[in-house]
C-alpha cells in the first residue's frame, strides 16, 4: 500500500506541491490583509478551498482522462479501488494544505474554532470533489470534469437568491457564506455529506460496469 501511495504522489509531480503551497500561503496572507469587510472564513474555507480541492481531484487525480486508463482498467483487479485510492490521496494532501491554511489564518485572525472550520470545509469539499471524481470516470476528455464542476460551483455562487424558497437552505452548498439565517447549517452539512456519499455509490456502480 505504501508503495502505491508513493507511486501516486510521484504521478502528481512537484508542480502540485508548489501550486498548493503557494495557494496556502496566499490564503494566509489574505487572512492578514482582508480586513473586517470580508467574511473571510466562509469565503476561504467554504467556497474557495473546496473548489481548489476539486481542481486537484479533476486535474492531478484524473482517472478516465489518464492516458493509461485502458491498461489499468484491463489489468487491475478492481477499478474502484484504484479510483478511490487516487481520490483519497488527492483529497487528503490538498486537505492537509487546507488545514495548514486554517491553522495559519486562526493565528492571524481568530474568529471560530478549528473544529467548526473543519465542519465548514469538509462537506462542500467532499461533495464537489466527489462529483468531479464521478465526472472523471465518465468523461474521457481532459479538463471536462473540472469544467463542469467549475460551472456548477459558479452557478451555486450566483444563485444565492434561491434561498428564498423553502427547503433550499438545507441543500445549498455554501450555507454559512450565504448567511444561514435560520441557523440550520449543521443539518445542511449533514445532508451535503450524505449527497457526497451517494455520489460514491454511483462511482462504485460505474466502476463495476467497466470491470
Amino acid at each position, binding site marked *: 500500500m505504501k508503495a502505491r501511495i508513493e507511486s501516486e504522489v510521484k504521478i502528481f509531480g512537484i*508542480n*502540485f506541491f508548489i*501550486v498548493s503551497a*503557494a*495557494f496556502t500561503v496566499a490564503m494566509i496572507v489574505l487572512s492578514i490583509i482582508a480586513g473586517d469587510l470580508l467574511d473571510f472564513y466562509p*469565503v476561504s474555507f467554504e*467556497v*474557495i478551498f473546496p*473548489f*481548489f480541492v476539486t*481542481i*486537484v481531484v479533476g*486535474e*492531478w487525480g484524473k482517472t478516465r482522462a489518464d492516458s493509461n486508463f485502458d491498461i489499468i482498467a484491463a489489468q487491475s483487479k478492481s477499478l474502484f479501488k484504484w479510483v478511490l485510492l487516487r481520490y483519497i490521496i488527492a483529497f487528503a494532501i490538498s486537505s492537509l494544505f487546507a488545514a495548514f491554511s486554517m491553522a495559519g489564518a486562526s493565528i492571524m485572525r481568530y474568529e471560530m474554532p478549528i473544529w467548526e472550520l473543519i465542519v465548514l470545509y469538509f462537506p462542500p469539499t467532499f461533495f464537489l470533489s466527489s462529483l468531479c471524481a464521478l465526472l472523471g470516470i465518465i468523461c474521457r*476528455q*481532459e*479538463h*471536462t470534469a*473540472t*469544467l463542469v464542476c*467549475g*460551472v456548477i*460551483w*459558479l*452557478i451555486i*455562487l*450566483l444563485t444565492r437568491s434561491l434561498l428564498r424558497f423553502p427547503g433550499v437552505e438545507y441543500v445549498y452548498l455554501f450555507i454559512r457564506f450565504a448567511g444561514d439565517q435560520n441557523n440550520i447549517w449543521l443539518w445542511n452539512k449533514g445532508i451535503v455529506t450524505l449527497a457526497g456519499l451517494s455520489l460514491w455509490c454511483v462511482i462504485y456502480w460505474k466502476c463495476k460496469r467497466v470491470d
Partner: protein
Amino acid sequence: MRKMFSVLHYEYKMQFKRLVTWGVLLVATALSLLDNFPSAGNLARLEFLNEPAYFVYRIVSLDSLVLLFGLMFLLAGRIPIDTKTGMKSLLMSSALRKWQYVLGKLLSGFLYVFTIQCIFLLLNTTIYFIAAPFRISLIECIVPLVKAIFVSLVPTSLFVSFCSIALPGMIDIRLFYILAAILFGFNATYVGSAEAMPFYLITSGDLVRLIWVHPRWPFVDMGNVIANGFFLVGSSLVFGSLLFLKHKFWRSE
C-alpha cells in the same frame, strides 16, 4: 499574414465544432432565461425587468459570467494541447513564424468568445422581445444591445480570450484555473450597488453602467468606468504580449 489567417481560421472553426461549446451556451442560456424570462413571477421579483435596457444590463453583468467561465476552460488548453500532442514541434519545424502562431491563436480566441457572447445576448434578447407581455419597440432593444456589444462584449471577450490562451502557455494550466476561479468567484459574489464597483471585476464592473443605471442613483463615475475598461483591455494586451516576449516559447529566429 496568410499563415496567420490559416491558424486563425482553423482554431475558430474547430472551436465551433466542439460539442462542449454548445453545451456551455445552452446551460448559460437556460440559466439566464430562468432568471430573466419576462414571466409574471420574474416581473414581480425584478422591478425593472420591463425595461429592455435593464434586461440587457442584467444579461451581460450577471448571466454572461457563467458563459465566460465555461469558455475560459475551453480556451485554456489551446496552447498546452499543441505542446502535449507534439503539434507545436511540427509547426515550429515548418515555415510558420512565432507571431503568426501566437496572433492566430489569440485573435481566433477573441473572435470565438465574441461570437458566442453575441449569439448568447441576441438569443436572450429575441426571446425576451417575443415573450414580453407588454409592448416594446425594436429601437428600445437595439440601442442597449449596441451599447452592450461595445462596452461589455468587446472588452470582456478580449480579457477572457487573451488571458485564457496566453497564460496557460506560460504557467501550469491548473494554476491558471485556480487563479481564474478566484477572480470569477469574486465577480460572482459581488452584488450591484450604488457604490463604485472594484475595477478588477470582469462583467459587473462600472463599464456596464453605461448600458443602464438605477433611476435612484443615476450617476456614472467616468473614472471608475475608465479604470474598469483599462483593466480589461490593458491586462489582456499585457498577457497577450508576454507570449511574444518569452524567448523559449518558439524556435530562435
